[in-house]
């Protein structure tokens, strides 16, 4: 059984950053600021196949406050060591503001503007030269001891089936309870997948005001998805034995464990203390830009924007994705899926269904794996080169006054 003492004994390490946080990876990020610069950015990244150089970007040409905030938070995420911005030149992204925010965070940053440097070929050449320098520069940084209360762990489920709520999700819940006892911040999300669980969650909130905010957040999600005409429910969910949104929700909710809920975050907000946070991913106001999140990786990006060092991804049907910037640990719920996709899976929680392990045992296995991954061990998706990243248009109001009761303390 892993306890807080054990997590401390494992001896976490990380790269120290100027804002006091620590990173478990030291990535050079290449970020395109409009789809028109995507190809140049990709050609730059492709020159560094065996280096920690990750491609991210925002495809839109129109400005969006949410996209600005997420790009800023992702490029100053503790796992990031340096950033190259790739601009076409005429897009409306505030590249100056973004470059300034990265520079202010103490990280090397450089901007290649394709229209200014003479086109694709010279844009790639200039970018490659800078990234080569940045990769070399980052090798001089060394890991230092990192405490459990400096660690942020997120969870998401994708490709859920009926086994997700029996095995992998409760096992992640058990891991969350152990991490929170050790002082870590843990984040669960997708309020559209918590429809039907709002009053259970309200009872777990540390203040009545937070409980009311949780109910309002889920009501917002339910209304938004109803207008969209679909719940957060895909045909594969039904094939796997799930029938309704609320059935999927109850299974998804098991990922949150049993700890008190200490706050609500919106994308890009940072957890002010350890404990369990709910990330509200559903936009505010009338639906304007489509579905809240078009696929799982859009949610993973939002979890990373909240400072998550690592994401626990539970899957029954068998998602294979990873992510840029922060490692994804895949916890497979269905023993049959594990047999088919073992090369993509980090943890076989299906052993709970076949009677070979308890929920607590798999929870402990997950915590121990997080510690090894934090210290540099590759997850399966990292080893296979997965670096998915999606960022699209959204709109949010700042969180309400009751959402972070521990912040003032």
């Amino acid at each position, binding site marked *: 059984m892993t306890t807080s003492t054990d997590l401390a004994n494992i001896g976490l390490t990380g790269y120290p950053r100027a804002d006091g946080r620590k990173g478990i990876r030291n990535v050079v990020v290449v970020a395109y600021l409009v789809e028109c610069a995507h190809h140049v950015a990709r050609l730059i990244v492709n020159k560094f196949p065996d280096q920690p150089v990750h491609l991210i970007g925002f495809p839109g040409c129109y400005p969006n406050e949410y996209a600005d905030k997420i790009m800023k938070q992702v490029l100053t995420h503790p796992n990031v060591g340096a950033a190259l911005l790739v601009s076409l030149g005429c897009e409306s992204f505030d590249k100056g503001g973004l470059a300034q925010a990265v520079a202010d965070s103490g990280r090397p940053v450089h901007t290649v503007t394709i229209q200014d440097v003479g086109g694709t070929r010279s844009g790639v050449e200039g970018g490659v030269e800078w990234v080569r320098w940045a990769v070399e520069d980052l090798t001089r940084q060394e890991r230092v001891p990192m405490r459990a209360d400096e660690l942020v762990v997120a969870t998401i489920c994708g490709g859920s089936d009926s086994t997700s709520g029996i095995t992998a999700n409760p096992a992640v819940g058990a891991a969350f309870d152990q991490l929170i006892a050790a002082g870590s911040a843990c984040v669960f999300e997708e309020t559209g997948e918590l429809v039907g669980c709002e009053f259970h969650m309200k009872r777990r909130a540390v203040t009545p005001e937070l409980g009311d905010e949780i109910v309002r957040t889920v009501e917002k999600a339910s209304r938004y998805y109803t207008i969209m005409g679909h719940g957060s429910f895909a045909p594969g969910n039904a094939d796997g034995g799930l029938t*309704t949104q609320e*059935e999927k929700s109850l299974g998804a909710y098991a990922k949150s464990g049993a700890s008190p809920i200490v706050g609500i975050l919106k994308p890009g907000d940072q957890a002010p203390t350890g404990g369990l946070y709910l990330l509200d991913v559903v936009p505010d106001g009338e639906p304007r830009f489509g579905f809240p999140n078009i696929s799982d990786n859009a949610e993973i990006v939002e979890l990373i924007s909240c400072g998550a060092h690592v994401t626990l991804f539970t899957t029954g049907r068998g998602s294979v994705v990873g992510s840029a910037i922060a490692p994804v640990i895949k916890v497979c719920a269905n023993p049959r899926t594990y047999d088919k996709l073992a090369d993509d899976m980090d943890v076989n929680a299906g052993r709970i269904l076949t009677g070979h392990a308890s929920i607590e045992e798999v929870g402990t296995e997950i915590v121990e794996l997080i510690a090894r991954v934090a210290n540099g061990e590759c997850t399966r998706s990292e080893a296979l080169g997965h670096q998915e990243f999606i960022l699209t248009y959204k709109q949010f109001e700042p969180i309400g006054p009751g959402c972070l009761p521990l912040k003032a303390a």
Partner: protein
Amino acid sequence: MPSTTPAQATSLLLMSREDNCLIARVDLKAGDEVSIDGRAVALPGDVRLGHKVARRDLAPGEKVVRYGAIIGTATAPVAIGAHIHTHNLESDYIPTFTLEQDGNHFIGHKAP
């Protein structure tokens, strides 16, 4: 809420005491004899791993309960041991959309 003790040597899992459905731990075939609360029941149809069967006879309009919580409303009579899915259970919140057997047709199972 999801307090689970699933590692039992039975083919059907009870997630919570108050549930009126059970979850298949393995693929089951029509005619397979299973034990439901001590009663031997021959399954009327195939049930795949992770899918639900009725723990007792259900009437249309009855709430289906899993994890001790309501997951929707029965839309047809369901006999003990019968498969519970989109053909006889609907969400109380949001319609469920699935692909039909041929994988080409998208159909909505409308919430009331």
